[in-house]
Structures are given as C-alpha cells and as structure tokens.
C-alpha cells in the first residue's frame, strides 16, 4: 500500500498538477528570508526557472548574468568564496550542460557553497525538442567529487530540497522539470538529503517481490505501476530516491534483501543515471538483477510530455513490463 505521508488524490482524477520548478521559486524565497547570505543568479531565464519570486523580493541579492551560463557558474564560485550562498538557475541543458567544466573546477574542486538548479530536465520538456531536453545531467553531475545530486518528485519535494540545500554546506545540484506533474507528496512528507523513502509497500515472499527504485517526477508512474502489480498479485516495494548522490546504500541493501530484483526508474539516459548508481553499488555489495527504465541511448524530440514519456518507454506500462521481467514473467 501507498505510504501514509503521500497525497491521497494521487491516482484519482482530482490529482493536482504543478511543475516542480515552482518548488524552487517558493523554496528559494523562503530560504532567502531566513538567511541573508543567499543570493540568486540567472542567465536570462529568471521567470521560467521561477527565480523571479526571489528577484522581486530581494533585488539587491539578485544578479542577472545574461545568456552566459559559464560565466554565471564561476561568478557564483567567487561569490561563495566571499561567504555568500549562491543559487544559479538555468535549463539543465545549459547549466550544467554547457558550464560543466566551470562547475567541476571552480565550484566542486574549489568546494564552495554553490547550488546549481537545472530546470527543464528530461524529455517531458516537450515541444522544444531534443536540444532542450537534458537527459544526461544526472550522469555528468554525479561523476563530480563533492557534488550532491537531487531529483525531486514534485513541487513539495523540490521546495524541501531547496531548503535543505540552503542549509547544507557544499555544492548541490537540483534537477527540475518543466511540465506540470502530479503532486505526489505532501508538505509533511519527510525529506533528508541522502535518504530514500518507501512510498509503496506490498511485500510478498522475496522471490515473488519486485523492488521499484525511482527518482524525479516518474515517482508518479512508479506508484501507478506498483498499484497495478499489487492487483496482479505480485509483491512490490517502491523506494523513492530523490537524492541520487550520496546514494542511500543502507536503504538499497535492505531493499535488495526483500526482493528478487529491482527496476530503476528515471527520466534520464540509462547510462550514468540512477540505474547506474544503484548497479555500481549493488554489483559489489549484493549482486542483484536490475532492469533499468530510462532512455535507451537516444535523443529526445518534440511532442507532448506524456506522449514522449510513453514513446521512450518511461510510462506505467513500461515499468510494469520491466517489473514482470524481474519477476520472471
């Protein structure tokens, strides 16, 4: 059954749809009110990254960098060296996509307190097409030492991730989506950097139970698949991992002991993302069958978000099918 902390309207027609980037705007404003060291930088995408709420409230703590993401990353590094807590926001394709080396060297290698917000990640960006659909960002950020990587499921989790990042000392990457997505969690749902949470538990005998591991907005599809699998008589556990790095290895190990195999679910390339991170850990700690649900080494394209989620086999039936493969069906 679904975890008690989740929104009860999830799988009903009343489910609320909100882009999780709004959680960034709200969280940043809130964090900014609490801590005067927080500053925000934008690269000509102030409103669509939802930075405008902070910029309007604190114009003296906002820096408009123009369309120059590489500069923005390193300016933030310099500001952090002077004691500020900079949040830089753009589309994930441009930051970290274009500014990767600046993030790696001037933020992570310097180990300064900069938060990087990559909005418009995933194929659900939709009509803008492949040029704007970052499905490689988890991979390129996860591989950088000192970097924390978070992919929130919805607006509440995004807000909490921003508040947590503001209090965490060190570089953090938060990946957000453009399209409105189901509000799955509630303001009361727990969020701690580095902690995974069970969102669905209907365990059977381990050999008849599949573990679903989600990050980002596909949590919703994961929950739908879990319900369907349970109705078909399978045991199913869904562990949601908003933090891809540091990986909650303790939770993964415990999950792997309760099931026959795992399905990792992310709106990202199969290569280098959550699935890779889970496999890197479990292959040594407790060899486990893992079927990845993710983009299979392809670029995105234009379309409606849900159309694209289906096309790239990231939707509920694709998750169910992967789960049945794990269960030997």
């Amino acid at each position, binding site marked *: 059954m679904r975890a008690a902390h989740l929104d009860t309207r999830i799988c009903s027609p009343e489910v609320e749809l909100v882009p999780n980037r709004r959680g960034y705007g709200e969280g940043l404003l809130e964090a900014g009110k609490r801590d005067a060291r927080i500053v925000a930088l934008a690269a000509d995408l102030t409103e669509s990254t939802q930075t405008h709420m902070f910029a309007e409230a604190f114009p003296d703590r906002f820096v408009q960098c123009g369309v120059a993401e590489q500069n923005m990353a*390193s300016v933030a*590094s310099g500001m952090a060296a002077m004691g500020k807590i900079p949040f830089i926001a753009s589309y994930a394709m441009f930051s970290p996509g274009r500014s990767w080396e600046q993030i790696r060297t001037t933020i992570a290698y310097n180990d300064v307190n900069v938060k990087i917000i990559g909005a418009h990640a995933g194929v659900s960006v939709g009509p803008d097409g492949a040029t704007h659909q970052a499905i490689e960002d988890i991979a390129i950020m996860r591989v950088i030492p000192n970097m924390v990587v978070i992919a929130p499921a919805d607006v509440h989790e995004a807000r909490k991730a921003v508040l947590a990042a503001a209090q965490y000392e060190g570089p953090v990457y938060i990946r957000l989506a453009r399209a409105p997505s189901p509000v799955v969690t509630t303001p009361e749902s727990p969020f701690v950097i580095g902690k995974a949470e069970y969102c669905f538990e209907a365990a059977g005998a381990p050999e008849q139970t599949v573990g679903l591991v989600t990050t980002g907005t596909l949590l919703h599809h994961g929950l739908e698949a879990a319900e369907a699998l349970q109705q078909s008589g399978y045991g199913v556990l869904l562990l949601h991992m908003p933090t891809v790095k540091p990986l909650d290895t303790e939770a993964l190990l415990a999950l792997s002991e309760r099931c026959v195999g795992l399905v990792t679910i992310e709106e990202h390339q199969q290569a280098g993302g959550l699935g890779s991170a889970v496999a890197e850990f479990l292959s040594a700690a407790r060899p486990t069958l893992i079927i990845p649900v993710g983009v299979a080494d392809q670029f995105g394209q234009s379309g409606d978000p849900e159309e694209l989620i289906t096309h790239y086999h990231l939707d509920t039936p694709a998750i169910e099918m992967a789960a049945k493969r794990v269960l030997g069906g």
Partner: protein
Amino acid sequence: MNYLHSNDVARLERKANEIRQSIIEMLTAAQSGHTAGPLGMADVFTLLYFEVLKHDPQNPDWEERDRVVLSNGHICPVLYATLAHAGYFPVEELLTLRQFGSRLQGHPHRGTLPGIETSSGPLGSGLSQAIGMALAERMNNPYSAKYFYCLTGDGEVNEGQIWEAAMLAGKEKLHNLIVIIDRNGIQIDGYTKDVMPLEPLRAKFEAFNFDVQEVDGHNIRSINDAIGKAQAVYSQPSVIIAHTIASKGVDVFERDFRWHGNPPGKGPEDRVPRDQQAQVALEKLRTLAGTISQETL
C-alpha cells in the same frame, strides 16, 4: 597608492630577481611546468605582494585582505615563489613543485596552500570568479576598500568566458575590480598575432566599458602608477595591459614561445644545450645578463 622612491624601486627589482631565480630553481627541480609566463610576470607579482596589496602572510585568511585571483593558473610558479618570499610558507617548499603529495600542485588548488584564492588552470574562469568576489563585497559593503585583482594572459583572452565576464563587469560598473593582462605576445602554439590576433585589445576592453591602461610590465614605477590610477577609477572596472617580455631576465630564453610550457632542461636546444639551461638561466639572473658581476648583486 604609495609613491615609490628610487630605493623602493631598487628593493622591488632585487626581490623580483630573487623570485625569478626561485622560479628557475623550482622548475628545474620539477622538470615540468611553465617558464616564459612566470619569468615575465615576476615584476608585476613582486610589486603586488611587496608593495600594493593589503594582506598578511601570517594570517592568509584575514577577512580584510585584497584578493588576487590568478586566472591563467599555469603561471603559478611565479605566484608560489612570490607567496613564499612574502612569508606565506617556507621558500624551501618551492622545490616540491608538481611532486606527489606537494601543496604546490601543477596548477593552483584552493585550500591546499595558504594564499591561494582559487583553483585555476582551465583558462577563462578566473575573471568570472574575481567578478563574483567583487560583486559579493559590494553587496556586503558599498564603501569597502578591498580591491580584487585578476591576473590573466593574452592567450587566455581567446576564451569566450572572458568576454562573458567582461560584459558583466562593465554592466555592474565594478570599480573595485582591477584586471592585469600579461601581454607577452606568445601562447603555446606560437605568437598571439598568428594564433589568434587580439588587436586592438585596448579598444576591445574599452568597448566593454573598462578603463584601460597600457604599461611596460617590467617598469615597477609605471605599473605602480597604473594600479594607483586603476584604484581611483570610479564607476568602471579597470584593465591594465602589461606589456611584458616572455621569459624576461634570461635573454637567451626571451620572446621565444617554445619556452611557454617547458622547464629548463627541456626547452629548445638551439641556443643553450639542455643540460646547461638551468645553470645558464641562474647565471643570467644573478649577473643581470652579464652586465654586473655576481658579487655586486
């Protein structure tokens, strides 16, 4: 800004010469690293650390210090040697350059060595960081007396990020930002005029709303005057184009782009055999290229 008397100039020139000797010694010990840029910028670095900067080598994290951001990190031998001579760490440690376990990394790493404000090496990002520091300082205190010095090279300004940063500095009217460009005319692949012509460089920075000065990068008094003027500029960032001679001080290495990335012992062989390059360089420096005997210096 202080007026420099002739004895000040003589003191600083002597110090710059000691720093150049340290550069040769450390590069020779490492058998790896860059020679031309460090030797060329020794006068600028000496003036900064022994005359201009507000800083305290005994308290490198002193909050009120001026900040020096070395953007073209590959010339770090001159930064390391100057920091050591200024008292940030023992001069003997210079001989560990580029060795395993050394605090003197091949390119600077923030947090490893006292006095290093940022990691650098990949070109183009130091100016952005200096701008970020200057912006943060202005937010904290609009009447701050701190200055933010960014050292960069003429090869480095090929990088697009330099111009992204320059646009922002001009927009923000960062009067506390002073950029010094090592205009030595060389980069790895050759002369800058061949690899990627920069002129009119002054006009480029003027077009980005910088106050621009050009100086002889080996004339201590001229550089000091230019920095003083740059400090006085109101409502504009400053750039000082320091015309330098690559490998300055070792005449047989000077102006030769082949010395960009090679240490003595691995440089071009047509003028000095490799096994004599370190010894010749040190002798040239100790005798000011043979114009004086070693004893008088």
